[in-house]
């Protein structure tokens, strides 16, 4: 299934899609794959796999901690692609979320080819905007991969138009001015941003940054096509570092709560 199809299916069901994020390699490569499969089984419609990076400027402490642990555990770019292959085999569209340097170092064309070969759907690029992405855009188009760029509350109409025109799959709307991390209340910046984005494109718009429970998911699902959850999943794994089985159970419960949320908007 493509990312576009997954969003379309949710739309036909009259609900938002649930997009779940976890970094590859945490607690280790095998454990990361197990956790991502739990997200799939418990109700995520689209999966984002984080590529752990040494200098993650857009991430708050939760995702930083897991990514750092994954790097200290020796996770490599090849392990991320291996994780993609295992998760994509479930049939759920699987994207990689990555800072730009690891892709550039791997080779942009080579990364696109290997990602496509692993069954990956595309890339979400938090520190790469379309005006600096000609090489990635060309490689993604050649391999029919999704290009998910971000829009922010501070984006001008002009930039929203430029960004959405370059996207394929969906558009990632960052709901808050700030880094990743679960927040107790949803942002009042998200609604207007989604409206401005939808005015510029027919692509589905996913909202991320800060969602941690079903009620928040329901709030966002009322106006967005997708609800993106990352730090809350990562936090669940970090909190159960001593007992993986319990961590996976908690992860399933949280996913089910969120999947319920996107269905009751």
């Amino acid at each position, binding site marked *: 299934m493509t990312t576009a199809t997954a969003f379309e299916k949710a739309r036909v069901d009259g609900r938002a899609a649930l997009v779940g994020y976890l970094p590859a390699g945490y607690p280790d490569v095998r454990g990361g794959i197990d956790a991502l499969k739990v997200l799939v089984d418990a109700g995520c419609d689209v999966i984002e796999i984080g590529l752990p*990076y*040494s*200098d*993650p*400027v*857009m991430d*708050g*402490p939760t995702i*930083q901690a897991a990514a*750092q642990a994954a*790097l200290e555990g020796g996770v*490599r*770019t090849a392990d991320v692609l291996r994780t993609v292959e295992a998760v994509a085999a479930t049939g759920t569209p699987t994207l990689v979320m990555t800072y*730009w*340097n*690891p*892709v*550039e*170092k*791997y080779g942009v064309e080579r990364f696109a080819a290997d990602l496509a070969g692993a069954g990956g759907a595309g890339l979400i690029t*938090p*520190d*790469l*905007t379309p*005006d*600096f992405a*000609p090489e990635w855009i060309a490689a993604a188009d050649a391999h029919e991969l999704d290009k998910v*760029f*971000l*829009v*922010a*509350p*501070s*984006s*001008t109409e002009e*930039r929203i138009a430029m*960004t959405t025109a370059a996207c394929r799959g969906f558009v990632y709307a*960052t709901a*808050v*001015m*700030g*880094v990743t991390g679960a927040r107790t209340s949803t942002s009042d910046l998200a609604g207007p941003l989604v409206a401005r984005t939808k005015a510029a494109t027919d692509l589905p718009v996913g909202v991320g940054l800060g969602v941690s429970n079903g009620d928040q998911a329901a709030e966002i699902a009322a106006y967005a096509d997708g609800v993106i959850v990352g730090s809350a999943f990562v936090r669940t794994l970090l909190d159960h570092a001593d007992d993986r089985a319990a961590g996976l159970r908690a992860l399933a419960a949280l996913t089910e709560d969120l999947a319920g949320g996107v269905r009751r908007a």
Partner: protein
Amino acid sequence: MTTEVQRTTSYDADEQGWFGGAGEGFGGRFMPEALIAALDELTVAWQDAMADPAFVHDFDTILREYAGLPSPLFHAQRLSDRVGCRVLLKREDLNHTGAHKIRNVLGQALLTKRMGKTRVIAETGAGQHGVASATAAAYFGLDCTVYMGSVDTRRQALNVARMNLLGAKVVPVDSGSATLKDAINEAMRDWVASVDHTAYLFGTAAGPHPFPSLVRDFTRGIGDEARAQCLERYGVLPDAIAACVGGGSNAIGLFTAFLDDADVAIYGFEPGGDGVDTPRHAATIWAGDRGVLHGARTYVLQDEDGQTVESHSISAGLDYPGVGPQHAHLAATGRASYLPVTDDEAMQALALLSRTEGIIPAIESAHAVAGALKVAEQLAAEKGPEATVLINLSGRGDKDMGTAIEYFGLGDPEKVTEDPVG
């Protein structure tokens, strides 16, 4: 003091911040979309300010009356005798707060006031840029938060105290390697959330556009002054100029005025640590490869997966795994030569300058002295005593006495009579 200066060079960035074009060039802006509007706003404000005679006048006045500029160009006679040609030192060590960095922070803080923002943030490694930022914030009445790796807050407790005394809040950063690069990451995270009222005083001529060009504009007075001073006094341009390069703000500040003087050889000296044949160094241009770090394409010390590798230098101010993109461009085009200087060579030069001229340089600047003296000996052999080498003495060594005590065993009665220069 910057009248009749050529504002542009053949090595400037284009509108997107590319040095040498988007394909093969360096720089650009690899940043989260959330910060693009702020970087655009900063770009417009900086360009307007640089074209506004009132801003330029205010900046010059503050530099002169508050920071003690222009700094003298000093003929180091005994050093000259030793190498056989004329050695000139641009005395940035005499500036307020002890280094060239005061130029950058006063420029950026003045711009912050002009933009109507009330708070500044900064990253710092050894603490010099943090102290300079805290100083500028105090001068202009701005709130100031400085991010500093927790490894560095312990190593540089005196500078933490200075920043506190100046009214700044110092936030220790524990993430990653808990050093300068992680302090930059944390400052960027702050900025994403605070950008409506906060300016990021970037400490070096690196990062996303417009910082490499903006920081250069505020530090280029070093070279503008030195070029005029040299011409006025000797009637000729130097044969060679030299500076140390970490991120590269003092170097680009010196180089800019000379970039289109084709007969002036330009040297940047990188921190070679234990040696560039070991993993413990920070010689980014010499040993790194193309990549993206902190918002710019440049040379980066990285592993085969593109993860940033921890750098090492005895000089905390040069201990950075990236380098300003204009330096990458100057290296790629061959306009400037970048060579490594080891910890040991730098420390020997520090001792030499102390003994021969009565000037204790910052260890950063000692890298420039060590490298430039080799160049001077070559030039003396080729051109004789009239050859001229101009070195940017970017900072003073007071902050480095702890390192010097440990390195030379100073204060140890067994060693106190030994000449560290040998």
